[in-house]
């Protein structure tokens, strides 16, 4: 299998790696770049544990080739922490105990973040549909949905006060 050189941007940083052409972006992120936040649950697009955003679009990194990241922008769960502070979603997941084993959590965080960006004030139903591509075998989803509802509320408050300041 031939290898290719890839130049890309990950969480705002310029990154280069060399990977076999048939390697998935998930494996490139984990094994070449050392970002192990995205997890492999199924490898077939069903569980969402590998969720990342690619040029602002939520995708399963297990169904993207590592070479496809060339010249594009990838954002992973590692990029959610800003200046050493947890993202609101991360804090709310802890507060609501929205995780147990935690393997699904990075995927849920990335997907929930994409959901709230598109729809800052979702209903419970919209959250359940929006996160249908993320599976969790531990929590029974209820606490995850509550954490996302609460994070949405907090983020709307923050945005409002930011708007006032300006």
């Amino acid at each position, binding site marked *: *299998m*031939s290898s*290719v050189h890839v130049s890309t941007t990950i969480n705002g940083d310029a990154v280069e790696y060399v990977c076999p*052409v*048939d390697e*998935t972006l998930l494996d490139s992120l984990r094994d070449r770049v050392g970002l192990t936040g995205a997890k492999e649950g199924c*490898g*077939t*697009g*069903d569980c*969402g544990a590998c*969720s990342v955003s*690619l040029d602002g*679009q*939520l*995708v*399963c990194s*297990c*169904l*993207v*080739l590592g*070479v*496809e990241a*060339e010249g594009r922008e990838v954002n992973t769960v590692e990029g959610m922490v800003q200046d050493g502070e947890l993202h609101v979603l991360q804090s709310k997941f802890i507060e609501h105990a929205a995780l147990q084993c935690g393997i699904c959590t990075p995927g849920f965080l990335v*997907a929930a973040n*994409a*959901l709230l960006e598109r729809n800052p004030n979702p209903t419970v139903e919209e959250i359940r*549909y*929006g*996160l*249908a*591509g*993320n599976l969790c075998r531990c929590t029974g989803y209820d606490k995850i949905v509550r954490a996302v509802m609460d994070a949405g509320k907090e983020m709307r408050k923050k945005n409002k006060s930011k708007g006032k300041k300006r």
Partner: protein
Amino acid sequence: MRYEAPKSMKEAVGLMAKAKGNARVLAGGTDLLVQMKSGMVEPDLIVDIKHIPATQEISKNGKGFKVGAAVSGARLRDHAGLNKAWPGVVEATNLIGSDQVQGRCTMSGNLCNASPAADSVPALVAAKAKAIVVGPKGKRTVPVEKIPTGPGQTSLKKGEIIEAITLPASSAKTGDAYLRFTPRTEMDIAVCSAGICLTIGARGVIKQARVAIGAVAPTVVLAPKAARAIVGTKLDDAALEKLAKEVEKVCAPIDDKRGTIEFRTEVAGVLAKRAAKIAYARAGGK
């Protein structure tokens, strides 16, 4: 395996035409990568078409819409003009997988993967969509129903690539709809499905209709007799019953763990009736 990301259709077609061994087009990869991982396909060459500008465009002119072959479901979801003109096509495409899958999947990939249960295909067939196919011998335009020839099989010849899918101009008097049956509400494969497009005339009488049924035969089937059952009517109960009966007649499904022959056949008729009502309301019929 080699990976190429050409910047023009000409280059892409050249690569596909010259390739020795198994060459595959890569659009969203939501079928192709799954198949590569399971060993079902082992390509020697992958041609990623996403860097070709024509495949990324959504354009509109007097004849209707042109949707590039690499346009994802998420982009269709966010396109106001397409949602207004072809809500059934957009809804059908948006049923594919999760938000993650929507970020990548394409209508052209759904069509070329040639699954009888492909969700966007019955809606596209009902809408009279056409595929713009580019190959070593030039361009041709093909009705979408002529692309899949059986499960996993298409009529595309060596070197041929779909550049875009066209949808005709839609009027306020035209409505389309797609419905599928799945045991779960999300992330499931259609047990059977129905896509309907109809146009009404004065006083709400249906002038034209197209009915396409999914997952009941090796390919999506167009059912002209079912369409005729509702043309000339205002979609009264008798017309709806006749529509369901004609739909049942074109069903030749398989029996498997997801649905029996009897179940698929009956439910296809029910879905057709319900989709017809939605399409009729969207066309402004009362």
